[in-house]
């Protein structure tokens, strides 16, 4: 895997250059992303914030290979993904990317253990038992492994989702409002887990959120407004981040 060095010398896992994304055509066309160039070094925890319609979700979708940019390039783990076909993209997501969504992360027909192992099952790979046990203990759901999502609380479900995102040791985990639907206690638990994954497992995490408190768990904050990056720097405290959002919103 050949990674281009990022500005501070750590190789970039995700690298986007000159991203444009336009929805619709003619007069009704909307530019969701305008000339976005950004990279995410390995082992970093980045939060992407921005008001509704700022393009933050679109950016994540494009970076994760869920959507294709109108122009520009994205490299994930050294692979140029904007030219990949559906099958190759599917493989990339399966092997290199972990996902955590706001809701509906789990398959209701599978129990917690099966849900965690789902990415490996899809890929037809044998699970690494040691890694699985470590993850289960880390997210603290050992006593819930045989339960189905309907029998678990929202926080527990989201913790299962974190374990699932990490099980295949992806190059990067994309989290889309992972704590958006949770009470503050569960929300803190899930964000702590992501922090933990970065610190202890060296996991790269990119999180989209509109919650300044959630963003404060990251070590880098990107702010998008009208499809452009308007801020890229150290993570800010909740208050600072709120002020920043006010200024761009």
């Amino acid at each position, binding site marked *: 895997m050949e990674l281009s060095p990022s500005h501070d010398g750590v190789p970039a896992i995700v690298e986007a250059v000159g991203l444009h994304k336009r929805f619709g055509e003619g007069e009704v066309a909307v530019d969701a992303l305008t000339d976005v160039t950004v990279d995410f070094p390995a082992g970093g925890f980045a939060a992407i914030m921005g008001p509704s319609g700022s393009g933050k979700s679109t950016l994540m*979708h494009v970076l*994760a290979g*869920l*959507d294709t940019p109108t122009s520009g390039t994205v490299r994930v783990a050294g692979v140029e993904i904007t030219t990949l076909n*559906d*099958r190759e993209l*599917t*493989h990339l*997501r*399966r*092997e290199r*990317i*972990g*996902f955590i*969504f706001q809701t*509906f*992360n789990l*398959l*209701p*027909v*599978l129990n917690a253990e*099966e849900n965690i192992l*789902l*990415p490996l*099952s*899809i*890929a*037809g790979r044998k699970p690494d038992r040691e890694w699985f046990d470590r993850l289960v203990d880390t997210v603290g759901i050992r006593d819930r492994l045989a339960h189905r999502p309907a029998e678990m609380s929202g926080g527990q479900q989201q913790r299962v989702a974190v374990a*699932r995102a990490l099980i295949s040791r992806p190059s990067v985990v994309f989290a889309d409002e992972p704590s958006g639907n949770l009470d503050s206690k569960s929300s803190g638990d899930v964000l702590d887990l992501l922090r933990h994954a970065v610190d202890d497992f060296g996991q790269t995490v990119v999180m989209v959120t509109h919650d300044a408190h959630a963003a404060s768990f990251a070590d880098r904050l990107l702010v998008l407004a009208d499809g452009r990056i308007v801020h890229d720097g150290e993570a800010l405290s909740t208050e600072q981040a709120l002020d920043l959002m006010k200024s761009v919103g």
Partner: protein
Amino acid sequence: MLALVLRGFLQRKVRVALTAVAIALGVSLMAGTYILTDTINGSFGTIFKTASKGHDVVVTPTQTLGRNVRSQTSPITEAMIARVRAVPGVAEAAGGIFTPGAILDTHGKRLSTGGAPAFVAATVPARFESFAPVAGRFPASPTEVAIDQATAQREGLRIGQQIIVAGSSVAHRYTIVGIVRFGGGESFGGAAAALLTPEEAQRVVGDPGHFDEIDVAAVSGVTPEQLRTRIRAVLPSTVDVRTGAQQAAKNTSDLEANLGFLRTFLLIFAYVALFVGAFIIFNTFSITVAQRAREFGLLRTLGGSRRQVLRSVLYESLLLGGVGATVGLLAGIGMAHALDQLFKAFGADIPDSGTVLQTRTIVVSLLVGVGVTVLAGLPPALRAMRVPPLAAMREGVQLPPRILTRRGAIIRVVIVAALVATDITKGPALLGVAVAALIGYILLLRARLRRGGLPRRAHVVPALARAIGVVVRWRGITGRLAEENSMRQPGRTMITAASLTVGLALVTLVAVLADGFKASIDQAVSRSFAGNLIVENSQENREQGIPAEVAARLRAVPGVASVTPIAFAVGRAKGGTSNSRITAIEPATFASMYRIEWHQGSNATLAQLDGSGAIATKEYASSHHLKVGGTIDVLAPTGHYVSLRIVGIVDENAANLLGDLTISRALATAAFGQREDALDFVSYVPGATDAQVQPAVDRMLAAAFPQTRSQTEAQFKQDTASQVNSLLTLIYVLLALSVIVSLFGIVNTLILSIYERTRELGMMRAIGTSRRQVRQMIRYESVITALIGGVFGLVIGVVAAVLITTLALSGSGYVQAYPIGTLLILLVVAALAGVFAAQLPARRAARLDMLEALASE
């Protein structure tokens, strides 16, 4: 409100189309059945009218034993015709002959008639003749023949060529002198006809000096009715006298009665298809109503009344039923043609000149189509009505519990049974009962499923899905998920599967019964037949007999030790309403080739059969209170009573050769007018083999009786089996329609389920599930559903078959047999049906736009 319904309709085109097809297919079979039978009726009506041209009065033998039993010895003689001629007002009277026979080429091969019968006819005076030469002329000498145009064209026959015409005597060759066509341009219902001179026709038919009818023309000034009365007065009661118009009407009504059976037979399949369609409509509406609970809640919040919500769903089913029934009705015209072709393929040609679309067909088809749809859509509509306004506010609304429970299920069984009964009362009621029982079982099962409260795992469906999941589980996660998904909504899966169950249960039932019948006949032949060869008419449906002369000629073949002729006749016990089966045997030779199971008497008893002696079966003896030494008066087809003295009682069953009564061959000829034999049993001299004797027998048969053939015991069994199989295939084809309808149901349910799982599929795709895996998952889910339907169908079909045979056929010698191979094939077919049904839904699921799916609610 209607505008809203219409808009919703257009937005859900695929689903509407799929659901409408479910009802349209059943309606098309129903409409097709009516159109076909009406068309046949209409064609024959024209034919009969043409045939009665110039006939002011027609004299025919009285059919004392019902319209389908005709004495082989006609009471109409030259003397009787002379008596008619002497009646004042008669301008002309002539005897006519029109009897089933065989027309063959000079190699002894039957001319193809597309399955229609072939007739031997006699020429009649010009004013009565319904045939007209298109080339050549009518036969004038005993060696000449005229043949119908259709057959001549099909076989490329020309004037001057030779053909063989065979009936109840030694077959002769004839030179074609004319090509004729039936008056008015109609073909005679696809039948072939060979016209001979009257004397030669009588010889061929084997009834010299006798005619099938007398055609009479009146002098001017005498009405047919007046003439009829005068002729009636001078003729015995063994003949009927009708005016030409009456005769045509009688022929038409006889035909209609016979067609009634065909119509009922086909309508059963239409009802089955409609019933399956009803399942699908019920299921589709249930699912969509559940999916639209919020919409209904919103309507209620905005001030919509419960009645309005109910009406909106009912309008939808009404509209759907209207579309489905109309499409079905139009497709019915094509279906009538397809049925016609189907029967042709199975050897029954029916005339189809001018499609007849009666108002009755239109009304019944639309009414039944719309009725079934609305009825099936009613329970879901009632549920929609009960959605509370609050549902609009809630996430993941639960619908109020269904109103229908066991009581509802029973009500529906009654409705369906009543619907079926209206047309089946006179038909094969047994099948009707079986269908009703099956329906009841499924509905009760469903009612049980629905009551809820039971732990999920206790349901039948999950248990079955688990068991069947083995088939797909080895495929990894896609198989596992398919298995789980099929258990999510056990009720839904059950109903979807049940629609397939109906068709497959009937297929299984028929297959098991047919196998049993084959085994029964097999066993009966093995146990009873002690000869070497069986000689019979080579015509497929075994209705025509063989000339009595065959037996005598067979005895002269080298290597043949003994021949015993067997004939079948019918009679009616005095005071009885149904006909009795009578077997006629040759007492001296019969026991040497047939093992009789005596209840009272022995083979020595056969000697007493001479004269008026008769043997009764045990069952017949007890139902008619007969004892050895007692007598029974039996009405023969000739119109005379014959007094039979019971000399012995046998323990025979229905599958065997001996009928209710067994009499001597001589008595059958003398008293029952039975000239032809049905079969000849042949035994060889000691040491002779099939290879030595059968070719010699066949050579003799080919030369003198080309319409007959010989079969060894094994060949006979094989032939019987293939005849049963042929009927079986016809039934399979008709049931296939129901299976196709249920496929649409599976497609529909899958599409709706996929719609519900949009988010989930989006998530799965995001985390790396490939399109192929999604397709696989849907396909497996479909296969599981189909197999649940298949397993239920097999079980219900086998159980129904066992019930029917033990209840209705016990003691009849029925041998229970199970076509394991066929049943396994059925399961494979069910699985393949699942794969097939999954095509469209799987493609849809795989093509799902991931981002939209993730964003959807």
